[in-house]
Protein backbone atom coordinates (compact mmCIF):
# COMPACT_ATOMS: atom_id res chain seq x y z
CA UNK A 1 0.00 0.00 0.00
CA UNK A 2 1.47 3.35 -0.92
CA UNK A 3 1.79 6.08 1.65
CA UNK A 4 -0.98 8.30 0.29
CA UNK A 5 -3.49 5.50 0.41
CA UNK A 6 -2.51 4.49 3.90
CA UNK A 7 -2.88 8.12 4.86
CA UNK A 8 -6.37 8.11 3.36
CA UNK A 9 -7.31 5.08 5.41
CA UNK A 10 -5.95 6.56 8.56
CA UNK A 11 -7.84 9.78 8.18
CA UNK A 12 -10.86 8.11 6.60
CA UNK A 13 -13.52 5.94 8.21
CA UNK A 14 -11.11 3.44 9.69
CA UNK A 15 -9.51 5.26 12.54
CA UNK A 16 -12.59 7.27 13.43
CA UNK A 17 -14.57 4.13 13.96
CA UNK A 18 -11.67 2.55 15.79
CA UNK A 19 -11.63 5.51 18.15
CA UNK A 20 -15.37 5.22 18.63
CA UNK A 21 -15.14 1.52 19.34
CA UNK A 22 -12.34 2.06 21.79
CA UNK A 23 -14.34 4.77 23.50
CA UNK A 24 -17.37 2.52 23.68
CA UNK A 25 -15.29 -0.17 25.33
CA UNK A 26 -15.58 -2.57 22.39
CA UNK A 27 -11.86 -2.88 22.08
CA UNK A 28 -9.59 -3.66 24.95
CA UNK A 29 -6.54 -1.50 25.47
CA UNK A 30 -3.61 -3.00 23.67
CA UNK A 31 -5.90 -4.18 20.93
CA UNK A 32 -5.21 -1.14 18.80
CA UNK A 33 -5.50 -2.16 15.19
CA UNK A 34 -2.34 -2.44 13.14
CA UNK A 35 -1.61 0.53 10.96
CA UNK A 36 -3.50 0.25 7.69
CA UNK A 37 -6.15 -2.08 9.09
CA UNK A 38 -9.66 -1.02 8.21
CA UNK A 39 -11.57 -1.71 11.42
CA UNK A 40 -14.89 -0.56 9.98
CA UNK A 41 -14.73 -2.96 7.07
CA UNK A 42 -13.85 -5.91 9.30
CA UNK A 43 -16.71 -5.16 11.68
CA UNK A 44 -19.32 -5.12 8.90
CA UNK A 45 -22.09 -7.68 8.68
CA UNK A 46 -23.28 -7.25 5.09
CA UNK A 47 -21.74 -7.06 1.66
CA UNK A 48 -23.00 -3.51 1.09
CA UNK A 49 -21.74 -2.24 4.46
CA UNK A 50 -18.35 -3.81 3.83
CA UNK A 51 -18.04 -2.21 0.41
CA UNK A 52 -19.09 1.11 1.92
CA UNK A 53 -16.50 0.79 4.67
CA UNK A 54 -13.89 0.06 2.03
CA UNK A 55 -14.87 3.31 0.33
CA UNK A 56 -17.01 2.00 -2.55
CA UNK A 57 -20.63 1.54 -3.46
CA UNK A 58 -22.92 -1.23 -4.76
CA UNK A 59 -20.75 -3.74 -6.62
CA UNK A 60 -21.74 -5.08 -10.05
CA UNK A 61 -21.95 -8.82 -10.68
CA UNK A 62 -19.04 -9.92 -12.82
CA UNK A 63 -18.25 -13.08 -14.76
CA UNK A 64 -14.64 -11.95 -15.02
CA UNK A 65 -13.91 -12.93 -11.45
CA UNK A 66 -13.08 -16.61 -11.19
CA UNK A 67 -12.70 -18.93 -8.22
CA UNK A 68 -9.66 -21.14 -8.82
CA UNK A 69 -8.86 -24.34 -6.88
CA UNK A 70 -11.75 -23.55 -4.53
CA UNK A 71 -13.71 -26.66 -3.58
CA UNK A 72 -17.53 -26.91 -3.57
CA UNK A 73 -17.39 -28.84 -0.30
CA UNK A 74 -14.99 -28.31 2.57
CA UNK A 75 -14.12 -31.40 4.56
CA UNK A 76 -13.46 -29.08 7.47
CA UNK A 77 -14.56 -25.49 7.98
CA UNK A 78 -11.39 -24.61 9.89
CA UNK A 79 -9.40 -24.52 6.67
CA UNK A 80 -11.11 -23.72 3.38
CA UNK A 81 -8.83 -23.04 0.42
CA UNK A 82 -9.91 -20.01 -1.63
CA UNK A 83 -8.30 -18.98 -4.91
CA UNK A 84 -9.47 -15.88 -6.76
CA UNK A 85 -8.40 -14.55 -10.15
CA UNK A 86 -9.71 -11.27 -11.52
CA UNK A 87 -9.72 -10.83 -15.28
CA UNK A 88 -11.00 -7.26 -14.95
CA UNK A 89 -8.45 -4.75 -16.28
CA UNK A 90 -6.82 -2.42 -13.74
CA UNK A 91 -7.68 -4.62 -10.78
CA UNK A 92 -6.48 -2.80 -7.65
CA UNK A 93 -7.71 -5.01 -4.87
CA UNK A 94 -9.36 -8.35 -4.17
CA UNK A 95 -11.37 -9.10 -1.04
CA UNK A 96 -12.85 -12.32 0.34
CA UNK A 97 -16.16 -12.17 2.20
CA UNK A 98 -18.03 -15.02 3.84
CA UNK A 99 -21.74 -14.34 4.10
CA UNK A 100 -22.55 -16.43 7.18
CA UNK A 101 -19.46 -15.73 9.26
CA UNK A 102 -19.98 -13.48 12.32
CA UNK A 103 -17.96 -10.78 10.54
CA UNK A 104 -18.22 -11.03 6.77
CA UNK A 105 -14.90 -9.67 5.61
CA UNK A 106 -12.08 -12.17 5.76
CA UNK A 107 -9.24 -10.55 3.82
CA UNK A 108 -8.44 -7.65 1.49
CA UNK A 109 -5.44 -7.76 -0.81
CA UNK A 110 -4.07 -4.67 -2.51
CA UNK A 111 -2.55 -5.49 -5.87
CA UNK A 112 0.11 -3.06 -7.09
CA UNK A 113 0.82 -2.80 -10.83
CA UNK A 114 3.00 -5.74 -11.83
CA UNK A 115 1.42 -8.18 -9.41
CA UNK A 116 -1.01 -10.70 -10.90
CA UNK A 117 -4.63 -10.12 -9.82
CA UNK A 118 -4.68 -13.73 -8.64
CA UNK A 119 -4.06 -15.17 -5.22
CA UNK A 120 -4.90 -17.99 -2.94
CA UNK A 121 -5.24 -18.31 0.79
CA UNK A 122 -7.30 -20.25 3.33
CA UNK A 123 -10.21 -19.11 5.42
CA UNK A 124 -12.38 -20.40 8.24
CA UNK A 125 -16.08 -20.94 7.64
CA UNK A 126 -18.52 -21.37 10.51
CA UNK A 127 -21.09 -23.10 8.30
CA UNK A 128 -22.17 -23.65 4.69
CA UNK A 129 -22.25 -20.21 3.10
CA UNK A 130 -21.85 -18.04 0.03
CA UNK A 131 -18.35 -16.75 -0.42
CA UNK A 132 -17.92 -13.44 -2.25
CA UNK A 133 -14.94 -12.34 -4.26
CA UNK A 134 -15.05 -8.56 -4.29
CA UNK A 135 -12.81 -6.79 -6.78
CA UNK A 136 -11.96 -3.13 -7.05
CA UNK A 137 -10.83 -2.21 -10.56
CA UNK A 138 -10.29 1.27 -11.91
CA UNK A 139 -12.13 2.66 -8.90
CA UNK A 140 -15.26 0.51 -9.37
CA UNK A 141 -16.42 -2.54 -7.41
CA UNK A 142 -17.36 -5.93 -8.88
CA UNK A 143 -18.44 -9.13 -7.21
CA UNK A 144 -18.79 -12.86 -7.87
CA UNK A 145 -20.00 -15.51 -5.46
CA UNK A 146 -19.84 -19.24 -4.88
CA UNK A 147 -21.49 -21.49 -2.33
CA UNK A 148 -19.19 -23.69 -0.31
CA UNK A 149 -20.69 -26.48 1.76
CA UNK A 150 -19.08 -27.19 5.10
CA UNK A 151 -19.45 -30.78 6.24
CA UNK A 152 -19.22 -32.42 9.61
CA UNK A 153 -16.36 -34.81 9.57
CA UNK A 154 -14.66 -37.53 11.54
CA UNK A 155 -15.97 -39.82 14.18
CA UNK A 156 -18.21 -37.14 15.60
CA UNK A 157 -16.76 -36.87 19.08
Amino acid at each position, binding site marked *: *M*DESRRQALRTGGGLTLLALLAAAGWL*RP*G*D*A*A*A*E*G*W*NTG*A*FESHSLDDTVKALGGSAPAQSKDIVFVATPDIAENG*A*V*VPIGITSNIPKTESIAIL*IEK*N*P*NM*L*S*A*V*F*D*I*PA*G*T*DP*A*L*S*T*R*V*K*MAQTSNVYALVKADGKYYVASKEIKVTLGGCGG
Partner: protein
Amino acid sequence: MADPMKIRATLVGDSTEVKVLMQHEMETGQRKDAQGKTIPAWFIQTVTATWNGKTVLTAQWGTSVAKNPFLAFKFKGGAKGDRIQITWVDNHGDKRSDEATIA
Protein backbone atom coordinates in the same frame (compact mmCIF):
# COMPACT_ATOMS: atom_id res chain seq x y z
CA MET B 1 7.31 -15.11 19.62
CA ALA B 2 6.11 -16.81 16.51
CA ASP B 3 8.29 -19.21 14.58
CA PRO B 4 9.93 -18.12 11.32
CA MET B 5 7.76 -18.15 8.22
CA LYS B 6 8.35 -20.61 5.43
CA ILE B 7 8.74 -18.57 2.26
CA ARG B 8 9.17 -20.13 -1.16
CA ALA B 9 9.86 -17.84 -4.11
CA THR B 10 10.26 -19.51 -7.49
CA LEU B 11 10.93 -18.04 -10.90
CA VAL B 12 8.29 -19.26 -13.37
CA GLY B 13 8.88 -17.79 -16.84
CA ASP B 14 9.06 -14.03 -16.41
CA SER B 15 7.20 -14.05 -13.09
CA THR B 16 7.98 -14.94 -9.52
CA GLU B 17 5.62 -17.22 -7.64
CA VAL B 18 5.60 -16.68 -3.87
CA LYS B 19 4.17 -19.11 -1.34
CA VAL B 20 4.19 -18.33 2.36
CA LEU B 21 3.29 -20.31 5.47
CA MET B 22 3.05 -18.42 8.76
CA GLN B 23 2.77 -19.76 12.28
CA HIS B 24 -0.07 -17.93 14.02
CA GLU B 25 -3.08 -18.82 16.16
CA MET B 26 -5.55 -16.65 14.22
CA GLU B 27 -7.85 -16.86 17.24
CA THR B 28 -11.31 -15.60 16.29
CA GLY B 29 -12.44 -14.15 19.61
CA GLN B 30 -15.62 -16.24 19.23
CA ARG B 31 -14.42 -19.38 20.96
CA LYS B 32 -14.73 -20.22 24.63
CA ASP B 33 -12.23 -22.13 26.74
CA ALA B 34 -13.06 -25.12 28.97
CA GLN B 35 -14.15 -22.75 31.77
CA GLY B 36 -16.57 -20.97 29.45
CA LYS B 37 -14.45 -17.84 29.20
CA THR B 38 -14.17 -16.22 25.78
CA ILE B 39 -10.71 -16.62 24.26
CA PRO B 40 -9.74 -13.14 23.07
CA ALA B 41 -9.13 -12.51 19.39
CA TRP B 42 -5.50 -12.78 18.35
CA PHE B 43 -4.79 -12.55 14.67
CA ILE B 44 -2.56 -11.16 11.97
CA GLN B 45 -4.00 -7.90 10.65
CA THR B 46 -1.62 -6.77 7.97
CA VAL B 47 0.81 -8.51 5.65
CA THR B 48 3.31 -6.80 3.39
CA ALA B 49 5.44 -8.45 0.73
CA THR B 50 8.40 -6.73 -0.88
CA TRP B 51 10.76 -7.69 -3.69
CA ASN B 52 14.15 -6.00 -3.38
CA GLY B 53 12.41 -3.38 -1.25
CA LYS B 54 9.51 -2.73 -3.65
CA THR B 55 6.02 -3.60 -2.36
CA VAL B 56 4.46 -6.38 -4.41
CA LEU B 57 1.45 -7.17 -2.19
CA THR B 58 -0.25 -5.84 0.91
CA ALA B 59 -3.10 -7.46 2.73
CA GLN B 60 -5.46 -6.77 5.60
CA TRP B 61 -6.74 -9.85 7.35
CA GLY B 62 -9.65 -10.49 9.68
CA THR B 63 -10.10 -13.22 12.25
CA SER B 64 -11.46 -15.68 9.69
CA VAL B 65 -8.19 -16.30 7.89
CA ALA B 66 -7.29 -19.88 8.80
CA LYS B 67 -4.83 -20.71 11.57
CA ASN B 68 -1.20 -21.06 10.43
CA PRO B 69 -2.03 -18.98 7.36
CA PHE B 70 -1.06 -19.79 3.80
CA LEU B 71 -0.74 -17.22 1.04
CA ALA B 72 0.26 -17.59 -2.59
CA PHE B 73 0.65 -14.87 -5.22
CA LYS B 74 2.68 -14.01 -8.30
CA PHE B 75 4.32 -10.88 -9.67
CA LYS B 76 6.04 -9.95 -12.92
CA GLY B 77 9.82 -9.80 -12.76
CA GLY B 78 12.31 -11.17 -10.30
CA ALA B 79 15.63 -12.88 -10.82
CA LYS B 80 17.33 -15.74 -9.06
CA GLY B 81 18.89 -14.47 -5.87
CA ASP B 82 16.57 -11.47 -5.47
CA ARG B 83 15.27 -10.87 -1.96
CA ILE B 84 11.65 -11.41 -1.01
CA GLN B 85 10.64 -10.10 2.38
CA ILE B 86 7.34 -10.77 4.12
CA THR B 87 6.20 -8.89 7.21
CA TRP B 88 3.11 -9.38 9.31
CA VAL B 89 1.70 -7.41 12.22
CA ASP B 90 -0.95 -8.82 14.55
CA ASN B 91 -3.52 -7.17 16.80
CA HIS B 92 -1.19 -7.46 19.81
CA GLY B 93 1.27 -5.31 17.91
CA ASP B 94 3.62 -8.26 17.45
CA LYS B 95 5.52 -8.17 14.21
CA ARG B 96 7.55 -10.69 12.30
CA SER B 97 9.66 -10.29 9.15
CA ASP B 98 11.34 -13.08 7.23
CA GLU B 99 13.25 -13.25 4.00
CA ALA B 100 13.91 -15.68 1.22
CA THR B 101 15.76 -15.50 -2.06
CA ILE B 102 14.17 -16.31 -5.39
CA ALA B 103 15.14 -19.79 -6.56
